C-alpha cells in the first residue's frame, strides 16, 4: 500500500506528517516501507542492511585508501558501495581513484559498486574519457537556489544519469545514482526562503526520486551544531529523514555521525544506529574505527555494523554475502569467520 502511493506523496506531505509523529511512529511506519534498488547487487531486501565502505585518506594516498578498503572488506563491509570522499578535486586524481576502485572490485570479483564522491561535472568529464565509473555522485538540496550553489540543476543531473546508464556496468540492475543530503544545507547557502530545514530536506529527496538512485544518504550530524545541536536533535533528525525518504520511495541510508563541536558522542550514535536499524534503514557508513581522518568527523565503524547485524540478525546484500562465504571471510551463517591476524593472500597482494 505505502509502496503504491509513494509516487503520489509530495515532500511537503511527508515532512508535514513527520511533524505529527513521535520517534516510535517514525520507526514503525518507515519499517513498513519496502524499497529495493540494484546495480551489481540488490539493496534493501527484507531482513538485510548494507554498508558503504568509506576509506578516505587525508591526501588521497592510493595505498592508504587500499588499506582502509581491505580493513573494511575483512570486517564484512562494502555491499552498499565502496565510496571515497576525495580530498582533491583534480580530475586526474579522481580518475586515478575511479580506476583504483575498479581494479579492486574486478580483481577480487566483489559483487559491489565503486563511487568517488566528486562533483557531477568531474564525473561526467571522466565518463567522457572512458573512465570505469560505476555510480555517479552528487550532493543535492531542497531548493533550486541551494542546488545552484552546489553547481547543479535538474538538467545536469539528468545528463549525468544518462551518462552513467550508457556505460551499462550494472549486472543485476541499473540504478546508477548516489545522492547525499543533509538538513541545513539550504540555510547555510542562504537559499532556504524561510522554510524549515526538515521540509527542505524532504524536498531534496523528491529531487533524488526523479533519478532512480541506488543510494540516498542523509549525512545527518555532519553539518554542525548550528543546525542540529546535540545528540537528541541528531537522533530526531535521523529518524525524520529516514521516514520521509522511505515514504517517498527512496533507498535511504543514514550517515550516523557527529562533529566534535556538537554535544554528542559515541553513545548517542549507538542509540541512533539501533533505532534506525529497528526502522529498517537501507544502509549505513563503515569508517575505520568510526574516525574519518579526511573529513574530521565521527561516523559508524565496521564494528558498529557487526554489532547491529548481530543484534537484529541483519544480513548483507545477498550477492555480497554469498561472495563473503565463497572467499571464506564468512562462515555458512554469514557471520565473519575467525579473527585472522594474518591477511589473506589477496589482501597481501593488493598492498604488496
Amino acid at each position, binding site marked *: 500500500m505505502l509502496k503504491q502511493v509513494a509516487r503520489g506523496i509530495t515532500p511537503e506531505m511527508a515532512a508535514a506528517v513527520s511533524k505529527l509523529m513521535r520517534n516510535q511512529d517514525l520507526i514503525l511506519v518507515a519499517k513498513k516501507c519496502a524499497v529495493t534498488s540494484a546495480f551489481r547487487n540488490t539493496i534493501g531486501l527484507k531482513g538485510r542492511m548494507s554498508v558503504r565502505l568509506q576509506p578516505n585518506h587525508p591526501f588521497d594516498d592510493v595505498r592508504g585508501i587500499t588499506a582502509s578498503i581491505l580493513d573494511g572488506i575483512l570486517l564484512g563491509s562494502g555491499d552498499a558501495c565502496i565510496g571515497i570522499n576525495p580530498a582533491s578535486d583534480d580530475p586526474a586524481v579522481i580518475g586515478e581513484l575511479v580506476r583504483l576502485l575498479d581494479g579492486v572490485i574486478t580483481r577480487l570479483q566483489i559483487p559491489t559498486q565503486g563511487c568517488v564522491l566528486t562533483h557531477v561535472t568531474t564525473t561526467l568529464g571522466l565518463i567522457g574519457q572512458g573512465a570505469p565509473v560505476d555510480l555517479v555522485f552528487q550532493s543535492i538540496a531542497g531548493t533550486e537556489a541551494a542546488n545552484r550553489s552546489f553547481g547543479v540543476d535538474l538538467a545536469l543531473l539528468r545528463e549525468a544519469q544518462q551518462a552513467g546508464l550508457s556505460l551499462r556496468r550494472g549486472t543485476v540492475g541499473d540504478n546508477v545514482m548516489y545522492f547525499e543530503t543533509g538538513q541545513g544545507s539550504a540555510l547555510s547557502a542562504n537559499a532556504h526562503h524561510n522554510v524549515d530545514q526538515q521540509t527542505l530536506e524532504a524536498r531534496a529527496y523528491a529531487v533524488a526520486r526523479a533519478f532512480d538512485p541506488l543510494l540516498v544518504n542523509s549525512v545527518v550530524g555532519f553539518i554542525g551544531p548550528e543546525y542540529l545541536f546535540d545528540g537528541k536533535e541528531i537522533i530526531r533528525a535521523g529518524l525524520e529523514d529516514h521516514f520521509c525518504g522511505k515514504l517517498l520511495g527512496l533507498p535511504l541510508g543514514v550517515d550516523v555521525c557527529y562533529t566534535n*563541536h556538537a554535544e554528542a558522542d559515541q553513545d548517542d550514535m549507538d542509540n541512533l544506529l539501533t533505532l534506525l536499524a529497528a526502522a529498517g534503514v537501507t544502509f549505513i557508513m563503515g569508517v575505520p574505527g568510526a*574516525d574519518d581522518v579526511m573529513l574530521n568527523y565521527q561516523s559508524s565503524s565496521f564494528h558498529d555494523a557487526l554489532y547491529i547485524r548481530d543484534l537484529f540478525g541483519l544480513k548483507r546484500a545477498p550477492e555480497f554475502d554469498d561472495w563473503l562465504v565463497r572467499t571464506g571471510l564468512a562462515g555458512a551463517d554469514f557471520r565473519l569467520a575467525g579473527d585472522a591476524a594474518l591477511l589473506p593472500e589477496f*589482501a597481501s*597482494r593488493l598492498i604488496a
Partner: protein
Amino acid sequence: MKTPAPPSRSLSDLRELTPARVGLGRAGASMPTDALLAFTLDHARARDAVHGVFDTSRLVEGLTGVGLKPIALASQARNRRDYLRRPDLGRMLDPASQRALADRGGSSCQFVIVIGDGLSPAAVNSHALELVRNLIPRLAEAGVQIGGTVVASGARVALGDEIGALFGARMVVMLIGERPGLSAPDSLGAYLTFAPRIGLTDAMRNCVSNIHGAGLSYDEAAFKIAWLVQEGLARQITGVALKDESGSGTPARIGTSQS
C-alpha cells in the same frame, strides 16, 4: 601464469599505510578495549580544544613583545554555547568593539592581522604567536606594512571582514582555530580576504589550513601566507580566482574555506 604469493602480511601492517584506525582486530562483533579507550581519549581532547579558554591576555602580551600594537575585541557571541548555536553572532562585532575601532581614528591601511579563537582556542593558544613571529619578516621582505593587529574572541572567519573594513584595510588575514578532528585537535587556519567588507562569501577568500605540529610548519605556512598577501595585493583579488602557485614544494593544502 600466476605470480608467486607475496610474503604474508599481518593485519596490523595496514596501519603503516594510513593514519585511519585500521587493523584494530575485534572481540566478537566489537572493538577491542584498547582501541575504544584510545578513541575516547582523542575525543575528549578534541572536546577540550573546542571548549578551551582563549588566552587573550597572553596573546596581547606576546604580540606586543614582537613589536605589534594589538587590540582585544569581541564578537556578539557572549559565551561558547551562543557561539556554537549562532554562527551569525560570531560574524559581528559587539557594540563596544565597534566603538573602539571607530574611535581609533587613523587612516586606511594596507594589511591587518586578526587572531580569533574559532572552533579551537587550543590551536590559537599553541600556534598563533609563533606563526606571527615567522610572518613578520616575510611580510617586511614583501614590502607589506601591518596597519593593525586584533585579538578577537568568539570569532568566526567572517568577523575579519567587519574588522578589516573598519580599519580601511586593503587585505585582512584571520588566523583562527579550525574545527578539531580526533587526530588534530589544535589545527590553525589562515584566511586571506582582499578588500574586506561585510557580506563577503568564502569564495572570496584564500585559506592556508592544517597548521599544527604534524601538519604545515610555521615557516611553510608563513611563506604561503606572505606569498598570497603579496600576490593578492598586486592582483587586487583573493578567492577562487587566486590559485596558490607559491611552489614551495609542500603538498597543496590551499583551498577556499569551509567555515
